[in-house]
């Protein structure tokens, strides 16, 4: 017997990373590093655009985690954006907690609210779950519209002393907002990547491919979905807190907008590619390019955006990144393990 036959582990190697993904990650790290110095080389309007891009990316990563991996198609993620935003205002303005500490606390509150919400909406299966989450978001919106201390239906502005507590100068405040947004975006990508590379990610991938098969192999499907839902609510709540920190004003209509926090997010993920970490990143970039080109068209822009999303879903259901993977076999964040065969020696 040859040495290789006796020791098969010498001939094969299980790896997730590819050459492309290793170089890709280095390039991504360089881009993130350059963006971290953004306040030095970006003007004010571009910094604001980047903040928007970052929180949309975080929202898209979370929706993708739910729909692409957890099999939970939600049309009600605006519930957690609104809860995060409102509780940020409550914690920072009424409880006097420093704003940057109030953001994670608001995210935690959103996650806590996700527990009873899940207990109700998880009773609905499949497509009815989607509309159920929408009703839940409407309930939160209508309740916040009734709270007089928070300005009722017309909402409230962030008190000026809270705004000052972020940073003294306007430039510094915008820089702090920018770094928080960048941290949130990078953190959301890292979180999903880490989750999928873990043992837990295997369970999620199994659920995505076939729920009964996953269950028969000992995956607790209901528990996995529940955990994914609460994690997504936490990060979506963080994004909500950041969004209304950046806007300095909150109202029920803006906080619980199905258009802004769910419709756009679904379009981003679908256009970029569902069920891949790269999908939301590419989708966010495409979304902001389209918006830059077409936003002057008003409602025509939304019609075009809707048509693109419908067209992509019908013609390329794995999105633009899915097309790239099929064609070139490239992946930036590979999560599946592949077998590397070594040459015979």
């Amino acid at each position: 017997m040859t040495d290789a036959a006796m020791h098969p582990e010498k001939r094969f190697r299980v790896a997730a990373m590819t050459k492309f993904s290793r170089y890709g990650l280095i390039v991504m790290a360089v881009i993130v590093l350059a963006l971290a110095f953004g306040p030095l080389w970006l003007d004010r309007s571009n910094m604001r655009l980047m903040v928007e891009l970052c929180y949309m990316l975080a929202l898209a990563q979370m929706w993708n985690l739910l729909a692409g991996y957890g099999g939970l198609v939600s049309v009600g993620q605006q519930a957690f954006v609104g809860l995060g935003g409102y509780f940020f205002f409550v914690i920072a303005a009424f409880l006097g907690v420093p704003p940057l500490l109030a953001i994670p606390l608001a995210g935690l509150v959103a996650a806590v609210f996700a527990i009873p919400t899940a207990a109700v909406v998880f009773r609905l299966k499949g497509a009815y779950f989607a509309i159920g989450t929408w009703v839940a978001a409407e309930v939160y919106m209508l309740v916040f519209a009734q709270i007089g201390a928070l300005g009722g239906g017309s909402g409230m502005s962030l008190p000026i002393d809270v705004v000052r507590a972020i940073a003294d100068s306007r430039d510094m405040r915008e820089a702090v907002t920018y770094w928080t947004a960048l941290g949130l975006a990078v953190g959301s990508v890292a979180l999903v990547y880490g989750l999928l590379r873990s043992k837990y990610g295997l369970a999620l991938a199994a659920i995505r491919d076939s729920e009964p098969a996953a269950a028969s192999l000992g995956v607790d499907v209901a528990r996995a979905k529940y955990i994914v839902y609460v994690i997504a609510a936490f990060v979506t709540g963080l994004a909500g807190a950041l969004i209304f920190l950046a806007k300095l004003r909150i109202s029920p209509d803006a906080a619980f907008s199905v258009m802004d926090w769910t419709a756009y997010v679904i379009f981003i993920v679908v256009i970029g590619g569902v069920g891949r970490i790269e999908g939301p990143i590419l989708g966010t970039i495409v979304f902001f390019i389209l918006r830059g080109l077409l936003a002057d068209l008003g409602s025509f822009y939304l019609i075009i955006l809707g048509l693109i999303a419908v067209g992509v879903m019908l013609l390329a259901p794995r999105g633009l990144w899915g097309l790239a993977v099929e064609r070139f076999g490239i992946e930036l964040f590979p999560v599946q393990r592949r077998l590397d065969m070594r040459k015979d020696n």
Partner: protein
Amino acid sequence: MDWINAILQGVLVGGLFALFAAGLSLIFGVMRLVNLAHGDLIVLGAFLALAVVTGLGLHPLLSLLIVAPVMFALGYGLQRAILNRTLGKDLLPPLVVTFGLSIIIQNALLEVFSADTQRLQAGPMETASLQMGAISIGAFPLLTFIVAVAVIGGMELFMRRTALGRVFRATSDKAEIVPLMGVNPKQVFAIAMGVSLVICAIAGVLLGVRTNFSPGAGPARLLFAFEAVIIGGLGSLWGTLAGGVILGVSQAIGAKINPGFQILAGHIVFLAVLVVRPQGLFPRTRDK
């Protein structure tokens, strides 16, 4: 007396909710498709009626002679060209495509009719009422309720007694098997969507005479329709009527307590039913 009046109004509005729900329920029953654009299609029906009423000077109820066939054709075409491609094991394509359609319809209506609120003028029948002691029942709400009962009763008979209804039920049970009996499921789905949009047209006209509507009014109708279906129990048309009535009465009682509670009260009753009796009040296993 005020309360009895409010509850009675709620019952009658419930008929309209049941009508919203009937089309949604039919589509889900036949092809397991949840149409997120359903509310917007109801509002589209109202706007088409508005165009016919202003263009030809017809009475809103007569405008259905034109709007209903147009909506049938739209539903048939939509199903054949787009929605049939989304059906399958994967949950995502039908949801994303109908959600996209919802946004497209809303913004197309905005582009054509502007964001102004509109109303269908139905003349004296809008204000006529039947007086019974201290209780007065609006003639038009009563007509709405009667139409809802007639449509649901008609659908029930159609499903049970006609050959096409039998094909619908067979396709609902096993779409893979009906081709063996010479049925083309894609054709059946397209006819079902056409019928669903005819019901949307009727509901849209009744909605437009009853209240103001605008291009953004669709999603709320979708949620009411969905709540009526779930409260009543999946697959049961009479259950859906009961669900609509329960929703209508809940909203009426909520509005009586505080105008801000109207919609909220309906949602809360829906969530309560979901927690206490997730299968709905009158479920039927046929279309589970």
